[in-house]
């Protein structure tokens, strides 16, 4: 698979086809979709219609009554979620969202306008569930659910990263990401997922994390981080797994145990926890903060999410800190309380170092690592030497789920400004709640859809290029593991020489440890400023 050169890909054709959208059948183009789920991935979690199939095949091997299943599923969800019913009814097709989607901006396909993406399902809703649609059909914007329409739904549901940027601009507040979420849920009733999501879901159900890391793998991995940190700092940091009675359970995305950029972010946490003497434990059972179940169905998201609290209960911890993950916070912030209500067996989080009560985490008892660290810095509880990050000119990519989804905007900035001397913001319409998606979120960070990813990431990359050219920015900081995995590939393509780093990598570099040796390298083993080989 080879994506065209950036000069070619950036020539985007925004001219819509001559025929109306209903009369323009979707062409499922390679490099724009992910491979379909494997049979064994669905079997592991007991999902329906587990079988070997291929997107490229004409026959997707659906059950005979697939249409009935889909429409019944739609009916059930319309009655279950009032928001969904509302989103199906109230769109006036004003088009305010149309040019806000990174996939439309970078690709020009009209069906990637959020309004039209949702219309793909609305047209079916009208045809089967509204009087006007039943009577007037196409005139009323209704259409039959055919095999090709189903394929079209699948194709575009996996060309949306559920980033919610479009909903920010909707005068009615329609959350188009929720429409995608429910389309994916309906497709899963027919065994139509992608392997990049279904595989991690099956792994997480089986092993406790998306990667499928077994307890001894986790142990040996973190041991190796410990050894690296000792080489770099001269300090042997403590850590523990599955320690009963620890005050805090730490939950992070498992990609941090595997991905090279994530590895360093995790090493940053380790240094921090050691330095402040935090009574914290990791868990091999809950070795995942992310939740690819959330990209599958509400039910699957709950099945994975509930494991976190089962483990917190078993270990008898008081509260939880969550790492630099994106969608984990969407689940926690926007879904957890609706699903479960307040968690009564844990304590309201209070920082043992500063005494700060995290009022916002009163209900679900989980605190974001950036809130925790920003609070330490605010109270002057850690010693920092920002000059160690002087080789970096830093900008921050706000992760969609944390900024737009959760409203956390200042804390990562507060941290970066304390641990780095050079921080520059990208243009205002591309950051904070307006942030542009990495183009690979919601489980679309596979490799077979690289063209889609590079197109979807173009608006973000453009904004990075702006600060790179204007201020010499060479570091793209972020607080999400999909970002760390996806953005480096994006930078290599659109903005060469920009390096992606987790915020806690920068913290780990700047953190001055008690008893450390004179550091000569950063956490990646690169020489610190002024320590380069002569």
């Amino acid at each position: 698979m080879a994506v065209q050169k950036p000069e070619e890909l950036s020539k985007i054709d925004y001219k819509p086809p001559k025929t109306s959208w209903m009369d323009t059948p979707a062409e499922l183009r390679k490099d724009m979709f992910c491979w379909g789920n494997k049979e064994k991935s669905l079997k592991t979690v007991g999902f329906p219609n587990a079988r070997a199939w291929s997107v490229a095949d004409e026959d997707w091997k659906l059950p005979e009554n697939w249409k009935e299943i889909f429409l019944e599923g739609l009916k059930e969800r319309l009655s279950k979620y009032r928001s969904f019913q509302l989103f199906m009814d109230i769109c006036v097709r004003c088009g305010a969202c149309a040019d806000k989607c990174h996939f439309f901006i970078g690709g020009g396909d009209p069906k990637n306008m959020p309004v039209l993406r949702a219309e793909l399902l609305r047209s079916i809703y009208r045809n089967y569930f509204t009087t006007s649609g039943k009577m007037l059909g196409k005139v009323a914007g209704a259409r039959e659910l055919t095999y090709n329409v189903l394929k079209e739904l699948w194709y575009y549901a996996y060309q949306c990263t559920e980033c919610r940027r479009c909903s920010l601009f909707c005068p009615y507040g329609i959350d188009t990401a929720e429409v995608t979420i429910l389309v994916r849920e309906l497709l899963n009733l027919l065994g139509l997922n992608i392997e990049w999501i279904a595989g991690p879901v099956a792994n997480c159900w089986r092993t406790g994390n998306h990667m499928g890391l077994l307890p001894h793998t986790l142990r040996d991995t973190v041991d190796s981080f410990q050894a690296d940190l000792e080489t770099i700092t001269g300090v042997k940091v403590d850590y523990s797994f599955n320690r009963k009675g620890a005050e805090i359970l730490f939950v992070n995305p498992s990609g941090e145990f595997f991905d090279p950029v994530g590895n360093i972010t995790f090493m940053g946490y380790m240094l921090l926890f050691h330095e402040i003497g935090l009574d914290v434990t990791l868990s091999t059972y809950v070795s995942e903060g992310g939740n690819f179940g959330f990209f599958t169905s509400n039910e699957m998201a709950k099945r994975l999410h509930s494991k976190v609290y089962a483990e917190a209960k078993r270990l008898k911890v008081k509260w939880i800190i969550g790492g630099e993950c994106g969608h984990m916070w969407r689940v926690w912030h926007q879904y957890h309380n609706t699903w479960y209500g307040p968690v009564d067996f844990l304590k309201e989080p209070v920082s043992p170092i500063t005494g700060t009560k995290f009022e916002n985490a009163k209900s679900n008892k989980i605190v974001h690592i950036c809130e925790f660290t920003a609070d330490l810095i605010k109270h002057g509880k850690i010693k920092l030497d920002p000059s160690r990050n002087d080789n970096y000119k830093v900008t921050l990519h706000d992760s969609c789920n944390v900024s737009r989804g959760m409203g956390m905007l200042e804390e990562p900035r507060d941290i970066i400004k304390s641990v780095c001397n050079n921080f520059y913001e990208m243009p205002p319409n591309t950051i904070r709640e307006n942030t542009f998606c990495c183009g690979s979120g919601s489980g679309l960070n596979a490799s077979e859809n690289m063209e889609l990813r590079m197109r979807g990431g173009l608006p973000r990359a453009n904004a990075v290029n702006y600060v790179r050219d204007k201020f010499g920015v060479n570091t793209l900081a972020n607080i999400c593991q999909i970002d760390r995995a996806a953005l480096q590939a994006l930078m290599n393509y659109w903005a060469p020489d920009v390096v992606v780093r987790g915020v806690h990598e920068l913290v780990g570099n700047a953190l001055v440890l008690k008893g450390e040796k004179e550091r000569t390298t950063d956490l990646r083993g690169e020489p610190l400023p002024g320590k380069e080989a002569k």
Partner: protein
Amino acid sequence: MPKFVFQGKDYEMDEDGYLQDWQQWEEGMAPDLAKTEGVTLDDRHWEIIRWLREYYIKYQIAPPIKMLVKEMGKIFGPEKGNTKYLYELFPGGPAKQACKFAGLPKPTGCV
């Protein structure tokens, strides 16, 4: 789904050309799998492929690149324990290509 033919027998592959069942792999397959990516294997490749198989049997997952680099350095010396060396041998990326030739699935998730 594509098939991998070896000594007259069909083996299931995924869309990226990875063997579906890592236990069906045998050493004779590696040169053929490498050929699909235009790589000719020599002893240096085999050092890595054999190590990857051992790692997979122990951990049920391919190693992170950081671990691979570190271990290669430990076992075969610093001149082999670096990313540049690994990319010279596996130009399509050591994680992706070496796993493919070793008959191992590539990891999925936030990576």
